[in-house]
């Protein structure tokens, strides 16, 4: 099975999010204190809207319930959350920012496991047998070096299930 995970450098950091002037102090506190932060796309085509993917509200609720050992936040001012609806039967997981210590990390495998369960729960109870494509982007910040890498997966659900992420490998040069 061809499992394609694209790892690249990213300039998305908590500092950069904290510098966004529209964010309230409450939002900035969430940016600073969340172990897992759901981040919106900063621009949608030509508009200036920050948008989450369509299923973000359900994803957020289920994640808070299933991963209650972590502090989970939504990177947006309360009441200003916008979502982007797209036109195909494809699964767009919200973009996620996590900060980890690559040597001790246990969060990334738990996160991928949650996402696999979430897709099964939300989509495979009702849809037809055709396997929809999954789009996933996780920004991983190294707590020590503050370097951020983005992990991007675009492919079938079965490929995501087979995905093994080793935090140490992500930051190997």
């Amino acid at each position, binding site marked *: 099975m061809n499992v394609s995970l694209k790892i690249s450098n990213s300039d998305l950091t908590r500092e950069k999010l904290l510098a966004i002037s529209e964010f309230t102090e409450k939002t900035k506190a969430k940016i600073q204190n969340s172990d897992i932060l759901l981040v919106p796309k900063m621009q*949608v085509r030509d508009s200036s809207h920050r948008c989450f993917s369509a299923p973000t509200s*359900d994803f957020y609720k289920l994640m808070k319930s299933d991963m209650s050992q972590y502090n989970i936040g*939504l990177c947006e001012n309360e*009441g200003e*959350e916008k*979502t*982007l609806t797209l036109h195909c039967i494809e699964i767009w997981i919200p973009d996620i920012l996590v900060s980890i210590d690559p040597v001790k990390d246990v969060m990334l495998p738990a996160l991928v496991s949650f996402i696999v369960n979430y897709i099964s729960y939300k989509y495979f109870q009702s849809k037809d047998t*055709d396997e929809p494509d999954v789009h996933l982007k996780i920004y991983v910040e190294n707590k020590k070096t503050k370097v951020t890498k983005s992990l991007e997966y675009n492919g079938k659900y079965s490929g995501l299930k087979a995905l093994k992420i080793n935090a140490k490998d992500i930051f190997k040069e």
Partner: protein
Amino acid sequence: MLFHKYDILDIDASKYSDYADFVSQLNSCIQKTSKRNYDEVYSEIKIMQKKCDLIKQAAIRNNDENTANISFLLNEYLVLLQSIARFWQSCDSLDYPSAWSFLQDGLDSARVLGKFLSEPNTHHILDLKAYLQNFEKFFPYAYFCSIEAVVKKKECSICKRSPFDPACNHIAGNLYYGEMAVNVVTDMEFVAAALVRNPDDKRCIIEIKCDKQNIQSGPFKLIHQTTKSLVVPYLLFEIILTKRRMSRSFYGNWPSDSPCPCGSDKKFKECCSDKEEIENPHYLIKASKQLALVQM
């Protein structure tokens, strides 16, 4: 993340007086559709939907969420039967674009039922879903319109709060006391439209003219021939895909820029136009059984 499944044959529901005779009435709807007594089907379904609502209200009063949700699923089954009746009625009047919409309504109901039922083929739901999906293959719709939009405001249909509000704990698509939670968009901004093959909703079609006078040679000829050859609603069937070789002359002046009849998705001029024989997909329809019984 445990997903709650329901058994619509649950005996607890039989404690509710309006549940009696429900199954024989479902059966009656199927038989009346088979005899094309559509108006009788619709009025029976209306009565049964009222019964469903009474069951739901009684269940809510008894704080019995399980039965309230079963009443939702029974109602969904009625919508499925009604959609099939409307599909056939539209086909009978050669209104195939409307038939397509009713087909999609029926498939939506079958998906909801398939999602929530602990025994997926209860009341032949999987058979009915396959039945409708088979008809889909004979319609001329391959691409669908679909929009991209920024949703600025939405509210939960259950608690009326924003789904992002920490006080809203409803998951869209789940059942709560006989209601399915959905996110209702109250403010949105259009971004773009696209033509796609795998839309979220297949109702947004590119309109194809349905010329009732020349149906045999028009784009709806396949669905027309299929429904006519099946004769009776609820005769379940399977489709066997084979290949058929036709002489090049059969295709006469087939437009060179049109899709090749062999089904390759290439233009005719870039594919089979120079061949002496063209192999094309050929569907064989094999009737299996007349659906008549709904067992409880």
